[in-house]
């Protein structure tokens, strides 16, 4: 016991100390083989061991295998599809893992008390160890194809992947008759599938006039599903299911659903007679208080498709680059409508939609509740919209002055650059942005010279 934190008394404050040592060792190997640059085969193998995993799962082997076929180099293909300038299929399957918790959670450990009991020192158990703790591993299939057409005027690259992560580290709860409330377990599995496609068009290539123009489009999309959850997490979820926050949605973990699924209370609108918001209960009845209404899943906050568009034009010393981005299909809570129209307090200055769109007297058919109501409305499905956005990410213009102009100044290169970011944002959901943190457009001008 020579660690400084084990001392019983010090002048002034008692220092705290923390210490951890992890030892790990490993072995890796790879084999690569190709035949005629047309058929490829690769495999790799790795063996790792670390002190932080329990004695029963100390060593873990990881490996991957991949094959590729450059079909564009096949003679018979070239004769059938002469416009295909390059093409390759790829497939790989791999298993990888991570080590991700404190070194000593695998063992039952004692820590020493700093108080003495009648002149003697005591030690007590910190928690139940779990010698069966293992590696968190991920198995991934990846299918891909890269092609080029018309002498690579048009290029296409596409990938599809499927990844399953299992043995996620989680807390498992214990009944208090164990004296301790939780221990670490590896349970739980998550599946991620997705694809990405990139297409490039080299539209103009005129070397004599030094003009090139290309456009590229890419899209990617990812979906995740929780395959398995530990009982401890299921219990936390059922406890927190009843929680409500006035301006954000609830995320929960449920087997069979995505990590990013949004859960809100189902509402059916405003009662024209009283101005109260009506909610739909699980059994089909309509109620006016949202307290016990069960929340439903309304969609994923991650977009279905996400991507970029860009174009690049060059003429002699002038280079113009534009970049755009888009998101399609994600669900989002319109916070502005919820907090600034529905829940707005009429004592303060408010958005004019508060006057125009909220309910005022019996017989009004309105989208938002009674002006006089002071109870907050919690997020419900009528405020969740599918969001499609298109943004102008950046524009960048660079001009390299011709050498003939600058050689008088003994310069080798002088270039001027101007750029702006975040020029516009088009979305189908109208909402306030930039209220918490101001937006920056960042117009930047720079000049650089080389002597």
């Amino acid at each position: 016991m020579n660690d400084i934190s084990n001392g019983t008394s010090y002048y002034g404050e008692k220092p705290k100390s923390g210490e951890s040592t992890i030892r790990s060792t490993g072995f890796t190997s790879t084999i690569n083989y190709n035949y005629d640059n047309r058929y490829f085969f690769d495999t790799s193998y790795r063996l790792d061991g670390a002190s932080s995993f329990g004695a029963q799962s100390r060593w873990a082997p990881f490996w991957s295998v991949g094959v590729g076929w450059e079909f564009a180099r096949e003679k018979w293909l070239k004769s059938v599809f002469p416009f295909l300038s390059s093409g390759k299929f790829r497939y790989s399957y791999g298993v990888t893992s991570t080590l991700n918790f404190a070194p000593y959670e695998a063992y039952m450990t004692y820590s020493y008390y700093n108080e003495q009991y009648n002149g003697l020192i005591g030690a007590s158990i910190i928690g139940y160890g779990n010698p069966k703790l293992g590696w968190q591993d991920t198995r991934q299939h990846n299918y891909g194809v890269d092609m080029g057409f018309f002498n690579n005027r048009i290029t296409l690259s596409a990938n599809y992947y499927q990844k399953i992560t299992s043995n996620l580290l989680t807390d498992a709860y214990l009944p208090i008759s164990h004296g301790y409330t939780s221990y670490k377990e590896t349970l739980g599995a998550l599946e991620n599938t997705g694809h990405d496609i990139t297409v490039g068009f080299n539209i103009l290539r005129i070397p004599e006039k030094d003009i090139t123009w290309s456009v590229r489009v890419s899209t990617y999309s990812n979906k995740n599903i929780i395959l398995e959850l530990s009982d401890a997490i299921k219990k936390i979820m059922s406890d927190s299911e009843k929680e409500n926050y006035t301006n954000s949605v609830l995320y929960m973990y449920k087997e069979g659903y995505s990590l990013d699924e949004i859960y809100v209370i189902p509402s059916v609108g405003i009662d024209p007679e009283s101005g109260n918001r009506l909610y739909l209960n699980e059994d089909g009845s309509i109620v006016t208080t949202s307290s016990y209404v069960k929340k439903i899943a309304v969609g994923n906050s991650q977009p279905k498709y996400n991507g970029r568009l860009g174009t690049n034009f060059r003429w002699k010393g002038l280079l113009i680059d534009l970049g755009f981005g888009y998101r399609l299909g994600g669900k989002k809570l319109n916070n502005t409508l919820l907090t600034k129209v529905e829940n707005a307090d009429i004592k303060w200055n408010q958005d004019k939609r508060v006057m125009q769109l909220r309910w005022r007297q019996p017989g009004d058919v309105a989208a938002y509740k009674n002006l006089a109501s002071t109870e907050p409305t919690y997020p419900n499905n009528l405020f969740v919209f599918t969001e499609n956005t298109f943004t102008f990410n950046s524009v960048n213009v660079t001009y390299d002055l011709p050498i003939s102009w600058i050689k008088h100044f003994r310069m080798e290169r002088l270039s001027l650059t101007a750029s702006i970011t975040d020029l516009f944002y088009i979305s189908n959901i109208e909402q306030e942005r930039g209220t918490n943190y101001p937006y920056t457009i960042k117009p930047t001008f720079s000049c650089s010279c080389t002597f």
Partner: protein
Amino acid sequence: MKRKIVTIAICILFVVVNSSCDDWLTVQPKNMTTKEKMFESEGGFEMALVGLYVTLQGIYTPGFIMMGGKGIETMTHNYAESLSSTTTYTYQLYSHNYTDAEVDKEFSYLFQHYYRIIANANALLDGLEQQDNVLSADKAALIEGEALAIRAFCHFELLRLWGPVPTRVDAQKKYLPYVKILSTSNYEYVTYEEYVELLFSDFNRAEELLDSSDPIKNYSNSDLNSSYNSIKGYSETFWYYRQKRFNLYGVKALLARLYLWTGNKTKAYNYAKEVLEAKNPTGEAKFTLGSQANINKSDYTFFSEHLIGMYLYEFEDKNGNFKGENAFLVNTRDVITDKLYANETDLRLKLFALSSSSTFGSVYGTQKFSKFKSSDNTDKSVPLVRLSEMYLILIETAPLAEANSYYQAFRSARETSNIPLTEDTRLEEMVKEYVREFFSEGQSFFAHKRLNRTTLFLSGATIEENEYILPIPSVELGFY
């Protein structure tokens, strides 16, 4: 080709060497020790045992549930409660509203911590079973005996709080788990009969082991309570201060208490008598009743009576006259002098001190825990079992004539009158004595529960049978 073979051979060799690296990959943390490493040395066993005491002392601290006012003393109505607000925590305790959220939370903490001590004891017992020549036979027996006694004690306390009134047991019902293993799967709840059987088996085995190894059998407490380690053959501090650990007589006293709890009066009588008649080698009694002499040296907890005491290094009263926290402002002066001590003089009245409170007027505060500051030079022991309880057990279980002789001895030690008991008055007087003697020590709730009394002595309020039984904490029920 040859180069290929050599390369492959080297790779294979490397893998083989790596796989035998298991030893190197076993790392011992510096500010903690794994269970395996702990039980490789004598010191490790000693520290694991002392760890049990440190946690236990945390539960039996004055002011917490088992000792003070925000706990069973309020449940017994021994401590005054203002009744003006019906939402305070103490009001819920006073009205036995155990399902209140805060009460549930505090009692879950208590429940969990008893089982935590039990889990630690199980780890220690597991280590003892597997050790081979690390400990001498004597020390192994002492440590095992104490660990078993502590495990049984915690289970007994759980039974007294969460179990049924002993004369009204539901034979089929599974009340509590008796835990003797360490495992992450749910522990099995057992019937009352099984639980009591396991309690007796642990206590009896503990008595056997301590009988063969405990120095208290052959040496007096004054020899053992010395810091000079002067007894021949016992050079380490670990063997001393037996009164502040689970010693042979403490275990016998707990057996007396358990036999009485389960209705076996004869055996309770036998064990209580054994403790009372324990003698030092020089012939005088090993444990003596407290008297004015103890009060003169500020020993308000009567250390000479402690059969098992918890060493408490520092405890400071925080408000009131003695700047006391929940243990201290106990009840109005009138209730104490008139009702509790029946308007008589009594040595125990000197354990109270007068103060005043805005809610109640003249009040008494207990002085029992006023001399526990680090600067006080007192014995610093919080009693779990005292000799007085042995007297009360004897008075309750002995034949009437003998009982009366004990009663007379006890009452004169308390410098108060004694009117001989009759079969009719015996039980009633005993309940009163429990309240008088064990003020701020929590034992009177259990006296009421054991006898299934329908009224609480000090307040006169009626109490139902179900109010004596705590519900299993909601956090625990969620798993079963």
